[in-house]
């Protein structure tokens, strides 16, 4: 894609995070000051559209309905007790979700189980203010695909903690396919054991405001994380994905690919990729890329990769970010083969996402995303 003109791309500043350890970690929302748009973490966020979820004290007005299919090797429990160890969250929204949630959903993938079918956790909103906490515990050497499917309408703060034991392998796809008015705020925290791997996929298609913060922590060497994201923001939609990969162990890998399209007035996407390679994380191999395709006027894509490296003894570290409109030469080429301008743009856009779908490689998700994109393309681009 060719670059990048004035109002569609903001200057990408490579600024190392000033302080990579959050000052506050707590399960109690009252430990946090209420965030404002002056805070770095919220500088791109439309605070007035969060329906006060950032204040951490909005009471529940009804739940989301959660349903899970039965898959051998996976067990699902809903418990009202908030017991056990849990690390503190890093902002008031996530701590508020924890404080206000009625019950904890726990999905356990049994040790050594190799699931032959995807586990689908369906989260259906009914327009109420609701909170969620989903724990996905992947026991040693287990392997599974978990799809968390968010649909309906909701004002929802729901966190997901993904704990991957030694040698286990998990793919978690979180699909934000909400109705147009939904607000969804979340932290997704991935903890990786020795030689384990996680593929984490965010697909944000619906909702008025979606703001998700995936993070990866390695507890032992040999962990591998792939973080993929695909988003499509139409007029008035805000889709924000902020990730943090904390390389604190030797010989771990991370690969981040986020791709988004923006279409229409005030479509706004935000991607912030913080990757930290600590001094002891020798042998780290990391790469992150974000690409945005602006389909029509009036959209804004913010894209900020931050890479901080405290040791030179690494395999590789890189980042890339591009934001642009359709490439005129690509469109000319396709049109010179008889393809109409409209169909040419659709081909290029499908192709833009097809690359990523190939890497995501979860057939039922890919089909759904393709269908959704086709529907959105139905009108125009």
């Amino acid at each position: 894609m060719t670059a990048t003109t004035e109002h569609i791309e903001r200057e990408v500043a490579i600024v190392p995070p000033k302080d990579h350890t959050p000052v506050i970690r707590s399960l109690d929302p009252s430990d946090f000051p209420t965030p404002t748009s002056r805070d770095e973490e919220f500088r791109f966020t439309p605070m007035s559209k969060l329906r006060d979820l950032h204040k951490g004290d909005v009471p529940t007005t009804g739940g989301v309905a959660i349903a899970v299919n039965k898959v051998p090797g996976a067990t699902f429990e809903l418990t009202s007790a908030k017991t056990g160890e849990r690390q503190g969250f890093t902002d008031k929204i996530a701590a508020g979700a924890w404080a206000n949630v009625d019950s904890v959903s726990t999905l356990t993938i049994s040790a050594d189980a190799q699931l032959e079918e995807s586990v689908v956790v369906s989260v259906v909103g009914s327009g109420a203010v609701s909170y969620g906490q989903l724990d996905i515990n992947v026991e040693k050497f287990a392997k599974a695909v978990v799809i968390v499917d968010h649909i309906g309408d909701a004002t929802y703060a729901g966190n997901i903690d993904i704990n991957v034991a030694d040698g286990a392998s998990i793919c978690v796809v979180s699909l934000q396919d909400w109705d147009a008015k939904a607000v969804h705020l979340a932290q997704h925290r991935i903890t990786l054991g020795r030689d384990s791997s996680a593929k984490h996929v965010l697909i944000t298609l619906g909702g008025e405001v979606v703001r998700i913060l995936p993070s990866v922590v390695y507890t032992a060497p040999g962990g591998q994380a792939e973080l993929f994201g695909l988003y499509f923001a139409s007029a008035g939609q805000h889709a924000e994905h902020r990730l943090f990969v904390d390389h604190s162990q030797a010989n771990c890998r991370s690969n981040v690919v986020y791709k988004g399209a923006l279409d229409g007035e005030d479509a706004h996407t935000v991607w912030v990729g913080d990757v930290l390679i600590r001094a002891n994380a020798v042998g780290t191999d990391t790469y992150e890329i974000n690409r945005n395709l602006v389909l029509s006027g009036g959209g804004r894509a913010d894209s900020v990769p931050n890479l901080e490296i405290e040791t030179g003894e690494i395999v590789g570290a890189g980042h890339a970010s591009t934001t642009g409109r359709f490439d005129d030469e690509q469109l000319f080429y396709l049109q010179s083969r008889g393809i109409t301008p409209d169909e040419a743009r659709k081909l290029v856009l499908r192709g833009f996402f097809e690359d990523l779908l190939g890497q995501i490689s979860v057939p039922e998700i890919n089909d759904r995303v393709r269908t959704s994109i086709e529907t959105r393309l139905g009108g125009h681009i």
Partner: protein
Amino acid sequence: MSVIEIKGLTVQVTTEDGPKDILRGVDLTVKAGEVHALMGPNGSGKSTLAYAIAGHPKYSITGGSVTLDGQDVLAMSVDERARAGLFLAMQYPVEVPGVSISNFLRTSITAIRGEAPNLRHWIKELKESMAGLQIDPQFAERNVNEGFSGGERKRTEILQMELIHPKIAVLDETDSGLDVDALRVVSEGINRVCAKGETGVLLITHFTRILKYVKPDFVHVFYDGRIVREGGSELADEIEANGYAQFVTA
């Protein structure tokens, strides 16, 4: 029999220093079944002519006319020109990430023919054309031009020409960057299309070597935005022997 008639064509491009005239009155007629070689030194405007015929937005037409079987080509959009029967094999075909050759070709053929091809016939047709150009069948699933070598790109252009079966094909330096084997394969592909007698070919080239494989009926020497000399294939031999200098000073 189809015919493209170019009369008094003048073309400008916009540069940092303002508009610049590139074509200064081109007259050229190509009929179906004929092979015309358009030869000239670098910078003479050969590629500009090719892109102007195809309708690239970078080139503005300031005068003259182009008609295809009497229809005003210059009034058509890029895709309309292609559907009317014009084809341009590009010198530098672009990559289209995430779009497979097979998807691209099927979309193009559907647009050009006005209906989706019968799937079984289409697969056979595609396989045969690919085999003829010695293109690995697996290429069908690769993304358009992504990671292709120069030779692979050019072969894929000729593959498109064969499948589209245009009335008039403009081949812009299709021979550049090809080794001898690839040049032979590509030339055979061009000759197969020509042999059907339904396509007129305008072969734009800097060098004479492709003319050993594709025999032109007419040779036009292009210099400074216009045709300065015309003749039969013997003109190519003259260029081979003496270069372009004689026309430059003329």
